[in-house]
């Protein structure tokens, strides 16, 4: 087991190297000059050259790459020309906002999806069940950015149920920074005002992101559960006179949830990616918006840092998913 985890963790290194190599090469094909961006439209040619020299941008590409990798090993992701700050400190700030958002979305999607899927399986051929399949297909087909606009218009503008544009109330100080996730931090510090406000602020964008994975999980739960409900041991339980609710909740659901765990990783990847759009629409100060700004300004170090961090998180989440799968299901053996 430990060997397995170690091997998986070890794998992350060559993956990261391969990936940075690709992105690094690509980002140097880009026409445009980050240094000119840094100095603004008033810069003289001499100033641009001087800064280029200072940042060692005139070195051959392979040397620049090696230097980048060396820095990365030390946890230094370079320097953002646009924000004038180390990429690492920018990412540390913006990433947690994205992480908070996507995690909350995943929770919503899982809870909502499992509940919906379980109910529709338990009441097979009921009205809800009849609706779940087309509805989940609808959910899967809605563009995130479109859903976001609808939520904005309906829940913020028309109904005034959710706030937007911030991670926490305007007049509420963010909780003391421990993890950078407002919800977790305010829980840890017992700052209930901040907690309420943070949850209230995350709901809108989180709902928008959760819709598609929720639909997928609901479908998956339903079909898994139906399969399990056909198994012999469920029949036995029923025969013993166990009530239907207990049968579904206690016996069937637990077994049906195993395959759900495996798709969580993939869904998380989806959430990380599409959070970019939710951040744009809801003015959520996350890493996606940061990366988009960097892309617009041809500022490649943050873009590189962004992809490294996203890939790393995605890999780690998948690792955790796989490991926890093993814990839940001891039948799995490693080769």
């Amino acid at each position, binding site marked *: 087991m430990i060997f397995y985890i170690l091997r998986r963790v070890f794998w992350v290194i060559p993956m990261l190297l391969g990936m940075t190599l690709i992105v690094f090469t690509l980002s140097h094909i880009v026409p445009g000059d980050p240094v000119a961006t840094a100095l603004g439209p008033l810069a003289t040619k001499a100033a641009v050259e001087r800064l280029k020299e200072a940042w060692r941008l005139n070195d051959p590409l392979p040397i620049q790459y090696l230097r980048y990798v060396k820095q990365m090993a030390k946890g230094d992701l370079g320097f953002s020309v646009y924000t004038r700050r180390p990429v690492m400190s920018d990412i540390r700030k913006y990433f947690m906002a994205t992480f908070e958002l996507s995690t909350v979305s995943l929770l919503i999607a899982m809870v909502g999806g499992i509940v919906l899927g379980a109910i529709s399986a338990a009441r097979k051929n009921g009205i809800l069940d009849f609706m779940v399949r087309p509805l989940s297909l609808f959910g899967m087909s*809605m563009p995130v950015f479109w859903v976001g606009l609808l939520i904005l218009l309906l829940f913020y503008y028309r109904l005034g149920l959710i706030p937007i544009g911030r991670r926490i109330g305007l007049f509420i100080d963010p909780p003391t920074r421990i993890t950078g996730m407002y919800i977790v931090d305010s829980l840890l510090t017992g700052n209930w005002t901040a907690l309420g406000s943070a949850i209230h602020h995350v709901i809108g964008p989180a709902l928008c992101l959760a819709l598609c994975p929720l639909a997928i999980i609901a479908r998956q739960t339903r079909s898994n559960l139906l399969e399990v409900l056909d198994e012999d041991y469920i029949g036995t339980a029923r025969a013993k006179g166990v009530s239907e609710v207990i049968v579904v909740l206690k016996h069937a659901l637990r077994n049906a949830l195993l395959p759900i765990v495996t798709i969580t990783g993939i869904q998380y990847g989806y959430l990380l*990616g599409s959070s970019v759009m939710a951040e744009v629409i809801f003015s959520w100060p996350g890493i996606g918006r940061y990366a988009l700004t960097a*892309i617009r300004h041809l500022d490649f170090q943050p*873009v590189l840092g962004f992809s490294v961090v996203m890939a790393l998180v995605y890999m780690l989440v998948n690792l955790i998913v796989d490991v926890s799968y093993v814990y839940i299901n001891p039948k799995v053996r490693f080769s």
Partner: protein
Amino acid sequence: MRSLESERDTLFVWVGEKATHLVYTLRRSPLTILGLAIMVGFISVAVLAPFIAPYDPIAIHPSDRLMPPSKTHFFGTDTAGRDVFSRIVYGSRISLRLGLIVTGLSVAIGSLIGGTAAFLGGRIDDAVMRFTDLCMAFPVFVLAMVITASLGPGLTNVMVAIVAIWWTVYARLVRSKVVEVKEETYVEAARAIGASEVRVFLKHVLLNSYSPVLVEVTLDFGFVVMLGASLGFVGLGAQPPTPEWGAMISSGRSYLKTAWWYPTFPGLAIFLVVLGANLLGDGLRDILETRTR
């Protein structure tokens, strides 16, 4: 000669059987028919765009700025007075072409590389699979965004970026299927008769792994259209004045309140195409995979 003819005959019979089966099961699945209808509808709209669209999708009409939907402009007009309906009609060409080219190329490249890798096995197989692992270690949208950003915004670059990621999906799919089929007795038998390796590979192995690929293609078609629109939305896709749906929503989003039709209808178009592909793909999966739900 004779054997070739008989082979062809069996192929015809086989296709015929499959088709009959397909039609039969389709009739029992209204959602799949709906999906098929949506797809056929959008494809006809794309093909017949010049006949359907009442206006030029690009020419501006300043005096018709932001007109609400009416008899003359079914979906209203945008800030440059362009007919939103016509733009959506022409936009279907862009999105469907994107979907077709990307899935087509991905399938071609993916099955070639995946199939070859599986057939040859050994080191090559390992190398290819490690590379696909690499691509899969990224959230798709993030990778597509970074590649498009590196290549520069534009429709062609969006396609290149998505194909560069997407072929790996098919490479893996085809590979696993080929590995499975390779060991089947009929392949062994074909080899035993003395059929050439290439022939065995093309005819027996690749052809027999078609069904999961077909399902995947249909489902992916929707996903690719969505991905393209998403890149357009964040400003990395088609450049103005191209009537790309995602870009239309992006420009129209500022007018959500004052001119709801501007961002709403392109969104509806994306939704419908993706829904169509999902319904169809979902139905096909039920039909082609023996396991029923």
